[in-house]
């Protein structure tokens, strides 16, 4: 059982890392998801796999350790939140850039900062109509 889990975790983590290094932004985001799941599984396995034992039932020595299950449940919930944020970010980035290459995205942060004229810093297409002068 342990070796199967180990191979699965290793394979998934390798796949996740490989996708994380891709030029395509979509794959980077999916890679984060895959790597996150691999690591969740790894945390679960590290807490020792105990056959078919129930976590909380009072069955003596055969009970599984409930702590890793609690940890992984927490990590999964947090992972969902972050993954949803990453997807939303991906969607918005695609709308703004059109292409999906990571190079195009990092090139934008490398560009010199735009000169500011009267609060231009926050001005972006789509947000002008909601602007109101502040006292």
């Amino acid at each position: 059982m342990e070796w199967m889990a180990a191979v699965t975790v290793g394979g998934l983590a390798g796949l996740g890392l490989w996708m994380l290094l891709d030029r395509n932004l979509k794959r980077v985001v999916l890679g984060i998801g895959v790597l996150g799941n691999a690591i969740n599984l790894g945390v679960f396995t590290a807490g020792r796999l105990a056959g078919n034992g129930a976590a909380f039932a009072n069955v003596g020595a055969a009970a599984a350790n409930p702590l890793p299950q609690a940890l992984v449940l927490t990590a999964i919930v947090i992972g969902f939140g972050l993954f949803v944020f990453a997807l939303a970010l991906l969607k918005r980035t695609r709308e703004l850039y059109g292409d999906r290459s990571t190079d195009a995205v990092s090139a934008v942060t490398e560009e010199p900062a735009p000169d500011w004229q009267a609060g231009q810093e926050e001005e972006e297409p789509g947000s002008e109509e909601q602007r109101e002068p502040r006292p």
Partner: protein
Amino acid sequence: MNILLVAPVLVPLATLLLGILLRPRVRLVERLSIGGCSLLLLVGLALVWQAAGDVVLSGQLGGWPAPYGISLVIDRLSAAMVAISATIGLATVVYGVGHDCPPQVIRDFHLFVQGLLCGICGAFITADIFNLYVWFEVLLIASFALMALGGGKRHLAGTMSYMALNLFATLLFLLAAGLVYGTTGTLNMGDLALLVRAGETAPGTTAALSLMLLSFSIKAALFPVFGWLPATYHVPLMAVSALFAGLLTKVGVYALIRLVTLLWPEYGPAHEILLWIACATMLVGVLGAAAQSEVRRILSFHIVSQVGYMILGLALATPLALAGAVFYLIHHILVKANLFFIGGLAARICGSEHLAGMGGLYARHPGLALLFAIPALSLAGIPPLSGFWAKLLLVRASLESSVWWATAIALVTGIFTLLSMNKLWNEAFLKAHPQGEAALRTAGAHRCNWWSIAALALLTVAIGLGAGPVAEYASAAAAQLGDPQAYFHLLRTTEAR
């Protein structure tokens, strides 16, 4: 359980929830956020006052016994970090009032700042590795949202890089936490420290702990893994940049200090490696800053170099060096956030963030020039400002440990810092504005901006002039780090029950 123990988390959380309820009323959210930060500052001061009386607050969430339940410990270092975070939080939300953005951006800014403070304070008070991971995630998601605030092309591109690298570091941390639990069977820092100190750990533990230190190093922007910081910190809103510059890397530094002093109290191989990394971090950061020509990029590289000083103190591991690291931490958070505030204001008045497009500020705003000089000279370590005392402690500690080359690097880094501050001064303040005096926008500054900057500058001067009590507090904090009885006490009392 003492209410003060959980107050650092509860106050920003309550402010956040109340703020969400009041969402449509932006002005009210703004005031609420300022009120919440003030209350958090009061909590922080109460904690410091308690800690200064050598009271260590500790407890178990939900009453579960120690190695299993979540432990909370507030010692001198934690108390000081909570207080200083609250100070920066308050300065940031006040500064944020002066931002000219759409109202909904302002509202979201205040809500996310509260979320960020909640995560940061949680990370400072927890004594449980997995709980630390949870707080890291809380502050991480808030920081992503703050980074993307405004939704412009630059913001989104910065968020993308920032998110990918920080998520990777956090996933490493989660994996390391799982492996540590697998090899030692415990997640409680005190319990783990007892096991590691007694040498009763499985062979894989060191590997798992190294992975954890690596992930903290990414968060703290240490030498080989600092690239994400200067690549992204110049992108978001000015107030957000300042908040990140002040607090985020310092959470990583705090976690490193906490873990290394708990697990390896004696000078050993871990400290040896940290010493080299610290020196490389100092040099690379300050040299990187010399190559930049935009205000926030220069300041971002300086964060990297300054983190090197704190890690130098941690690496030397003598009581004096640890005191120096704690003093440096306190001083640096105030000074760096203030420099970003001033840089933002200067850029807004000049209408450009490039040094080439700035100038003439000294003639028009001598007050701003003075307020810039205080944190800039403090950062470079000019007496009698706070940075001088912090560096003095570290230099003395490294001389006492007779690592003269580390001393030399620390001093050379100080000189380079002074040089690049001089460059900023000459370009942005002294020289005439390239488009003439008329290009300066006096309306660019809001009075709230001035308040934040002046308050932080005043604090820097106060720490510099009253260095005695602060140094005493820092050395007592270092003594507590060297002898973390509170962590072990928690285990003993709950086991006996």
